[in-house]
């Protein structure tokens, strides 16, 4: 089974994100960049699918700059066979990025294209379904379980109050939600091997932006709260304030 996994380099979720001096971007100082957490589930699922099939290859792909090689190497260290760096800027909305990825995927052989359900920087949750649409492929997003039987995919996706079952035939697109599996850590051996695995670079240019930047802001500060009191005796006063002041009850 041939699998392509699209990944992204993002700031670690524990990072404090601070507005940069230019007011247009984040201050990257002190930020640790990682493989997008949801993409870890996608890479893991790809490895398991290949292992289950007993044959095939896993290709990890990203649209980004030179620094994204580190992210690709992380996925290679987990066990992916080869990597493709599409050199160019991703767009802040999903479609420009999806167009670049779809064009590159189209040139390759694949049965499954895997993604993390969203990148935790832009939080768009757009690219997987857009790539599917551009390539005229079926797709399941926010997937917490997947079964592939021959050509037939049965995926469970998380929706409000339950799960939806999505069925389609390969080739297709699957976007991973947390809980799909337990991603493996790269072993030392894997990390050493990753250095020698093929990493192809292709200049694809910057993705088209369909949205204009207007302003980047810190979230509104919350007014300093008050400690109502200590222990259970403070509860009646809390309830009174919730009802009378906050009108929340």
């Amino acid at each position, binding site marked *: 089974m041939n699998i392509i996994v699209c990944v992204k380099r993002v*700031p670690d979720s524990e990072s404090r994100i601070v507005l940069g001096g230019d007011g247009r971007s984040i201050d990257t100082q002190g930020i640790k960049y990682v493989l997008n957490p949801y993409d870890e589930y996608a890479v893991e699922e790809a490895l398991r699918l290949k292992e289950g099939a007993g044959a095939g290859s896993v290709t990890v792909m990203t649209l980004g700059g030179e620094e994204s090689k580190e992210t690709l190497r992380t996925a290679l260290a987990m066990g992916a066979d080869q990597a493709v760096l599409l050199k160019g800027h991703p767009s802040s909305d999903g479609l420009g990025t999806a167009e670049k990825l779809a064009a590159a995927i189209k040139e390759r052989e694949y049965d499954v294209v895997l993604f993390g359900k969203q990148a935790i920087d832009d939080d768009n949750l757009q690219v997987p379904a857009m790539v599917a649409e551009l390539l005229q492929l079926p*797709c399941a997003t926010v997937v917490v379980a997947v079964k592939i039987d021959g050509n037939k995919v049965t995926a469970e996706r998380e929706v409000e109050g339950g799960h939806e079952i999505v069925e389609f035939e390969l080739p297709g697109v699957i976007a991973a939600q947390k809980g799909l599996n337990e991603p493996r850590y790269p072993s030392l051996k894997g990390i050493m091997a990753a250095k020698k695995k093929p990493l192809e670079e292709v200049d694809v240019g910057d993705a088209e932006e369909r949205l204009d930047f207007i302003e980047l802001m810190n979230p509104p500060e919350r007014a300093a709260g008050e*400690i109502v009191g200590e222990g259970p005796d403070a509860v009646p006063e809390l309830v009174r304030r919730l009802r009378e002041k906050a009108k929340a009850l």
Partner: protein
Amino acid sequence: MSVLAFAEQRGGALRQAALETMTAGRALADGSGVELVAVLLGPPALADEAERLARYGADRVLLAMSDNLAEYAPEAYTELLARAVEERGAKALVFSASARGKDLAPRVAARLGAGLASDVTELAVEDGRVVAVRPIYAGKLVSKVGFKADPALLSVRPRAYAAVENPRPGEVEEMTPQVDPEGLRTNVRMEAGEKRDRPDVAEAEIVVAGGRGMQGPENWKLLEELADALGPGAALGASRAVVDADWRPHAEQVGQTGKVVSPPLYFAIGISGAIQHLAGMRTAKCIVAVNKDAEAPVFKVADYGIVGDLFEVVPRLTEEIRKLRSEG
């Protein structure tokens, strides 16, 4: 010219999200002086709901009714919505950023070659163009963007806009529900059997969230009792630590690798307040924190805090709320 709003239904019933989407769509329609057209796709029996969409602000309701549209049919929905946008030269198409909206909106955007702003918390028309405010990095920053061209596609965060009655004529028009059968590749159905009796954490009016201070999954009955006392609009939430420890399902996780929520009332119980958690709940209107550590970061964002042992405070809180509710 018009603004379109997708009226989401599930299992033949209009969702609350559909009514919120009408309010958000109204803001764009009023801002550009055009009609708001609700688009309702579903089984024929659903046609009666057109009246409710009009009551919540739709000038016109566009119906595509077919039994094939009762369940979510991604390709058919995509084709019908893209067709509606093109035929009407729509300025914008608004979705709820619900599970379905987040799956469908990108497909329609790709079909139309249009820009999409996801999970927006504010939208408006400024100098004739659609602008949107949306949290990024799970709310650690907020970005304001403008669309370079129409149609503008947007998905609006649940609870960012309240459903408000705003009666309009709601003239009904039908569109043909037929789609190209070649394009249909996916079969979707709800998993049978599974039914949760509480709302989803992202859509709830009240969230009762627990963290590591709860000490173990067996203690969650305390939070369930509190949620029950608060009423049917209350959902349970959880911090990443307790989800990673398998105390609670991921569907309840609030924060950067879970859900970002904006309920009117949020209880953080035994949650110290990791940066990625605070980002995910700081847009709640009112935050209450209960924690034994007075220095816990959660108190910096909480409107009201009680420092103390949650195993004493929460049962008392449940009792007081029951009392309040029984007084009506």
